[in-house]
């Protein structure tokens, strides 16, 4: 077998607690499908037949996915605060070959072969996917003013071809300057440094990286610890070759470190099966006397998507954006389901916009106009309601005469008559009184607010 796929669905969604306090992140509906459906659909389209899903027990119970693949659920309990690398370590006995790790919040239409081909062709240690971010245009409920919270930027350095990953650092780890080792510049004199790239959290890793993780228990997160470590390791020689101080204690420490060095996990299968053999005339660089690939054993590659959809739904703004773009994606995938579900009862078909999605068993009253919105299943929307640019989840009741704009309304909420809601987030099971007026607010239950 060539690859095993692992989907990380145990995360909490720490950057959008308003939504995820009531609904676990993998189950958040996007285009009326649970968020977890999208990475699984990506894997199914690529041709995978088995996937390992790491999740929590309560999520597994509530999941109801129609997929032809065999899903192997591994449950980790909630109290163990496990990072993504910890989860991989947890299932290391199931991992027999190279592994493709996905996060549950990835919605993309990338051709997987682009990322995987880099991994195969260059016999890479790591191959990942990135996309240029663009300014979000949607108004996010609950945002005070125009200032967005400053996200820590990532600095990504790639070589001339744009495929080899040379440098990765997060602004949080740097003081004032960007420090680039001389050895990197000696081997790759031309490096393009890019900010504004979003990491899609899709990694192809070699098996020996998982073995390395098993031994090295200090690494707990893939994205923030393992990946930068691998990128740095490309240009540092194995610790055994480094000069050491003549000190017995230090020697012992070095021995321990040497066994934790990733180079000791790389097995040289076949000296003749090198990724670019000696007698081939290909070289990845020119202008110096060094051998192809500088004889480096650890190689990291990245595929930067130029066009196409790629979203990681980990903030409220991205959740809303993803919901906007998902009808296009579903059309591209050729899913034949009509946007308006067959069992939905809509009195005035003409008042429903062409790009709105309406779920099953939803009842929509007369003179109700729905534009650019996504409405879940089993909702009851009475007459004379105006819904524009909203995301309404399942089993929501909206009484007559309401006007909703740009809002997110979670499961089981009830909005009484005459309410006027604009750019709000209404949490699950909330009940808004009649003729309520809310602009740019987040209304969640008090018990949910207690969870931090």
């Amino acid at each position, binding site marked *: *077998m*060539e690859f095993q796929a692992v989907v990380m669905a145990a995360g909490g969604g720490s950057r959008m607690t308003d939504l995820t306090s009531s609904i676990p992140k993998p189950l958040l509906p996007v285009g009326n499908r649970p968020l977890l459906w999208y990475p699984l659909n990506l894997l199914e389209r690529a*041709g995978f037949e088995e996937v390992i899903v790491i999740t929590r027990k309560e999520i597994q119970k509530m999941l109801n996915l129609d997929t032809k693949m065999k899903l192997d659920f591994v449950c980790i309990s909630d109290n163990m605060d496990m990072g993504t690398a910890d989860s991989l370590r947890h299932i290391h006995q199931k991992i027999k070959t190279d592994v493709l790790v996905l996060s549950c919040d990835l919605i993309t239409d990338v051709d997987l072969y682009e990322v995987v081909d880099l991994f*195969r062709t260059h016999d890479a240690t790591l191959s990942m996917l990135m996309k240029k971010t663009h300014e979000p245009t949607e108004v996010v409920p609950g945002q005070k003013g125009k200032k967005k919270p400053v996200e820590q930027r990532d600095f990504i350095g790639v070589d001339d071809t744009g495929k080899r990953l040379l440098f990765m650092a997060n602004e949080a780890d740097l003081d004032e300057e960007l420090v680039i080792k001389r050895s990197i510049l000696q081997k790759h004199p031309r490096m393009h440094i890019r900010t504004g790239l979003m990491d899609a959290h899709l990694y192809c890793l070699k098996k020996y990286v998982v073995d390395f993780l098993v031994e090295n228990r200090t690494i707990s997160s893939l994205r923030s610890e393992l990946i930068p470590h691998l990128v740095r390791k490309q240009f540092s020689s194995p610790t055994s070759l480094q000069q050491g101080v003549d000190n017995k204690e230090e020697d012992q420490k070095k021995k321990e470190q040497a066994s934790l060095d990733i180079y000791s996990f790389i097995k040289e299968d076949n000296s003749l099966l090198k*990724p670019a053999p000696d007698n*081939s*005339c290909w070289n990845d660089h020119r202008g110096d*006397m060094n051998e192809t690939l500088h004889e480096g054993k650890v190689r990291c590659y990245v595929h930067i998507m130029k066009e196409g959809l790629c979203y990681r739904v980990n903030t409220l703004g991205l959740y809303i954006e993803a919901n906007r773009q998902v009808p296009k994606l579903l059309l591209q995938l050729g899913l034949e389901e009509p946007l308006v579900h067959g069992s939905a009862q809509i009195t005035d078909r003409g008042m429903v916009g062409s790009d709105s999605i309406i779920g099953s068993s939803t009842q929509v009253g007369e003179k109700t106009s729905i534009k650019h919105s996504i409405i879940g299943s089993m909702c009851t929307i009475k007459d004379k309601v105006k819904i524009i640019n909203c995301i309404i989840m399942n089993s929501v009741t909206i009484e007559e005469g309401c006007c909703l704009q740009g809002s997110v309304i979670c499961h089981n909420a009830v909005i009484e008559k005459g309410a006027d809601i604009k750019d709000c987030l209404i949490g699950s099971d909330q009940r808004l009184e009649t003729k309520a007026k809310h602009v740019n607010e987040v209304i969640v239950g008090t018990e949910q607010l207690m969870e931090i």
Partner: protein
Amino acid sequence: MAERAAPGGANPAAAALVPAGQQAPELSREEKLQLRKEKKQQKKKKRSEKGPAAEPPEPGTPSEPEQPRAARPAAPPAAADGPSSAEKPPGGKSKAELRAERRAKQEAERAQKQAKRAELGQAAPAAKPRLSPAEPQSVVKRLPEHVQVDDPAAQRKLAKKLERQQVPLRQDYGTKVNLFSHLHQYSRKKPLTQQMSIPSVVIHPAVVRLGLQYSQGIINGSNARCIALLEVFKQLIRDYSTPPNEELSRDLVAKLKPHISFLNQCRPLSASMGNAIKFLKKEISCLPDTLREEEAKEKLQDTIDKYLREKILLAAEAISRSAFEKINDNDVILVYGCSSLVNRTLCDAHAKQGRAFRVVVVDSRPRLEGRETLRRLVRRGIHCTYVMINAISYVLPEVSKVLLGAHALLANGSVMSRVGTSQIALVSKSYNVPVLVCCETYKFCERVQTDSFVSNELDDPDDLVVLRKGQAQLGGWAENKSLRLLNLVYDVTPPDLVDLVITDLGMIPCTSVPVVLRVKNVDQ
């Protein structure tokens, strides 16, 4: 007639042994076989009128067991069939009796296989008589598919074959120059893996990786490709396990075919790879049935290792030593492109420290392989000059000999090598500079080519588009209807331009190549 029926029944098995590819062209000769059938029946009637019933069926039927045997080696047994049937009437019953015994034995064997291959039905008996020509055999050479791209029938056959093997078909890219419209032209940006599932189940992952490395140009050069291919085959054999009720010698060859088709789709096979595959297939089908699976696999891996060691690695060393004799003191040697053999020869010669020589490296676009040669030679301390191919007539007056590598040596002595080699040979001839070609014998090929058009390889035409200061002059070539880009990979140098071929069998003139081929065939 009962006697006719039994061999007829045995023949589906016989026909099944014919490789699937051969059946297709012969199906089109339905009329011929009908004629032959009628002729035979007429002959039988005549003989039954003349003499006893014993004689006619036996001359008729013993020839039929020989026909299935003729199925595998097509020409020679068929030739034996002809004179043997002529000898039958005077020879009498003794020969007929021997033949009957032989026939009985073969029928017993084939009855077993017939049970398995019963579904072949009527097409197979039709296939059988076809292979026993009543007239002297005319071995019709089939054109390989890869030079028949403009023939829709051949392409349909290829598509069907690939579909059967579950290998995706790679689409051609861009408009081709008319003279080369019979060859495939692929784009590097559309790899074959686009149409395959991830993870690959039909094709072994190591083969997928190899195919990708071939198509992206990471493994380049005749020797490198062949060595990588043999290593991957070793891995395939390691991971292979015989299914129940199958024989390893037959099943393994069938299992290798989709992988070979896949590699062919990624990049057309080189002559060295073709010879290695033929060798391997022969070795597998000659495995004795008595071996256990583990022993058989070990034996195969040992034979592959032996082939690698003898035909490639030791041959390179032998060539290096022979060529050293030809390098004199204060020589100026001209090399072209990047040949692993020539590089090794020069590095070894320099290391021996008896001769002082310098090298002129000639390079050409779009591959610019000479840069890699330059790096390897300068690293060893050899004094090098680097020029592009348009400068050879300026450099040649000071060059004392030209050392070239080869992709393949054809049966008429022509040298098939990187495009530009024939130019260098031609200009060198006009300057009276001796041209030496280094080539191992495993690259000798039974094809005959007098020009570079018939069988060649078209590389990605986008390689010719060069980006200078952010602008690509040829960038919109696809929209311009009168513009075609041609990126040839190989060319053929006629034998009279080459002075000496240095092989592991010694230093031979170009005209001795068919002798070497004949000797090789006899050996095998």
